[in-house]
């Protein structure tokens, strides 16, 4: 811990504050480098056996080039890498905000049942052929997943409102929603044909193979809009992280902040899971690591959690593509398997 130097008060204020933020800026730079490296490796790795040279040539030749390599890189790998970026950032951000406004370290899109609601929506999309038929039938699952995510969040919110928007009640209602949609999802699976059931199971795994340019665009735009909206709440959320009563006594309307941020987090989650399926642990683990690295100041915590979300996703993506040669393991399985030891470590660390 640095020592406070004996200088004039005026100098000291800026000096102390710069010192607090100095470490954060270094961590930021290192994480950014880590992300760039991992995303680049992610682009190079795949089941089609392309060499680094092939990938470079395909990238330079552009999306319109008439070659299999260009087609693989621009239609499969690039969207997969970019969706890693968008989904990781969205889940990291949504998880951070849910943990902050609900004052619960276990809050995340996954644990609050929002992801299982998305799964149910996708399942209904697969079996019903609603709302679209024909060539664009593939958009049914993302659309219904999106709708159900928003609906489940609203349910948690309105139930929570009956209890005065208390953080603890909202977490419990989230768990209720989780069980409800798990049951409904099982029911849909039970009643569907083996082909559709396997489609649902595959969706629930969470896989980047579902990545499309449309998905990248939608998820990316939602992330950018939500990040801008949330930046307005940075100081209020920082105060909220110091405790509900503190925040209230500092003149912050905590109920209003909680409502707005909860809805924005739902939108982020919906954008992220609609196109790639259920991906657990990223939204839970990334905020914890970000908090350990840069502290509670939301101006640093939020970008850091998003960046760590991207790093986790891209590392998981690389593992998912390289652990079994020629086969891409669904990324949701990898994030969960990697997330378990991290979470265990953090729980042990907290109880010390």
């Amino acid at each position, binding site marked *: 811990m640095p020592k406070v130097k004996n200088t004039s008060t005026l100098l000291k*204020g800026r000096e102390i504050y710069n010192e607090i933020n100095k470490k954060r800026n270094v961590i930021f730079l290192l994480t950014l480098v880590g992300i760039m490296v991992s995303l680049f490796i992610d682009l190079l790795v795949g089941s089609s056996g392309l060499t680094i040279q092939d990938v470079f040539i395909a990238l330079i030749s552009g999306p319109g080039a008439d070659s299999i390599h260009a087609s693989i890189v621009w239609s499969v790998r690039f969207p997969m890498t970019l969706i890693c970026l968008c989904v990781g950032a969205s889940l990291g951000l949504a998880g951070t905000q849910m943990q902050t406004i609900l004052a619960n370290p276990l809050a995340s899109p996954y644990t609050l049942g929002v992801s299982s609601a998305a799964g149910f929506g996708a399942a209904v999309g697969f079996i019903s052929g609603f709302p679209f038929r024909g060539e664009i039938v593939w958009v049914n699952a993302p659309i219904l997943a999106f709708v159900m995510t928003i609906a489940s969040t609203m349910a948690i919110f309105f139930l929570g409102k009956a209890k005065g928007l208390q953080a603890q009640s909202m977490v419990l209602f989230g768990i209720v929603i989780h069980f409800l949609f798990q049951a409904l999802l099982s029911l849909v699976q039970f009643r569907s044909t083996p082909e559709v059931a396997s489609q649902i199971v595959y969706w629930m795994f969470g896989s980047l193979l579902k990545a499309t340019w449309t998905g990248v665009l939608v998820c990316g735009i939602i992330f950018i809009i939500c990040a801008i909206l949330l930046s307005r709440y940075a100081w209020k959320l920082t105060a909220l992280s*110091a405790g509900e*009563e503190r925040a209230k006594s500092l003149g912050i309307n905590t109920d209003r902040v909680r409502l707005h941020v909860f809805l924005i987090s739902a939108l982020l989650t919906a954008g992220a899971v609609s196109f790639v399926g259920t991906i657990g642990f990223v939204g839970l683990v990334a905020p914890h690591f970000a908090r350990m690295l840069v502290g509670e100041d939301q101006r640093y915590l939020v970008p850091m959690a998003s960046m760590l979300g991207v790093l986790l996703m891209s590392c998981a993506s690389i593992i998912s593509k390289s652990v079994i040669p020629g086969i891409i393991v669904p990324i949701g399985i990898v994030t969960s398997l990697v997330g378990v030891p991290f979470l265990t470590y953090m729980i042990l660390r907290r109880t010390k």
Partner: protein
Amino acid sequence: MITMKLSDVAVNFQKKEVLKGVSITLKGGQMVSVIGPNGTGKTTLVKAIAKLVRYSGEVVITDDNGKRITTNDIAYVPQMTVTTTDLTVFEMVLLGRVKDLSWRVEQVHLDAVSKILEELGLISLSYRPFSRLSGGQRQLVIMAQALVSHPRVLLLDEPTSALDLRHQLQVLDIAKKYNKDTGAITIVVIHDLGLAARYSDYIVLLDDGYSAKEGTPDVVLDEHVLEKAYQVEVDVSVSAGGFKTVTPIRPSSNLGGMGSEDLH
């Protein structure tokens, strides 16, 4: 000089009347203690002034020119702050100015924080996480957080209840100094009647949701007044330092035991 006028302030919690109608007038530069048995609405009263609870009646705070003072000029320090936040002491105090902070923190706020930390002897703790401070240090940091916004009304809810003797005096000395230096109204909810006698210019004794007695320490810290409110026989004497001290002797003979009303 600012003036605070409370007219018939009442608060209900789930159909239970906690505060039944308090009317008092306080003046700037006064250090006011709110005393009374448990469950008589002391905390609720200061929360009503800070607009943290809904109330009926009126709280009007005006400055010299008769202009109304808003909640922006009121700082409320709750009872002992329990939080696991990783924010550093410096950042915690900076949050006292949360309403004025923009994405890039302006120099004026940083200067204000370091100045108050210096004044309260906390500057060497600037980098330490708030959650790793002792109870006394936390209370001082929360005081710094309240004072950094230069409030014209400072509300302290049992600021000394979990502190050792040295920190009790330190916290109240800071509050008193701020009060005298700035002419603010400082209201302290306090159980220790000796400290109330020592630091207050004015004392409000709450009993059963009403203001049972108010005035200077000499007036309120009277054996009969206290016995009636607390239902305890007390001995009021003057210490060597010239301050009134209140020593409880035994529960009043007409007290059958602690009723459920007292268990708040």
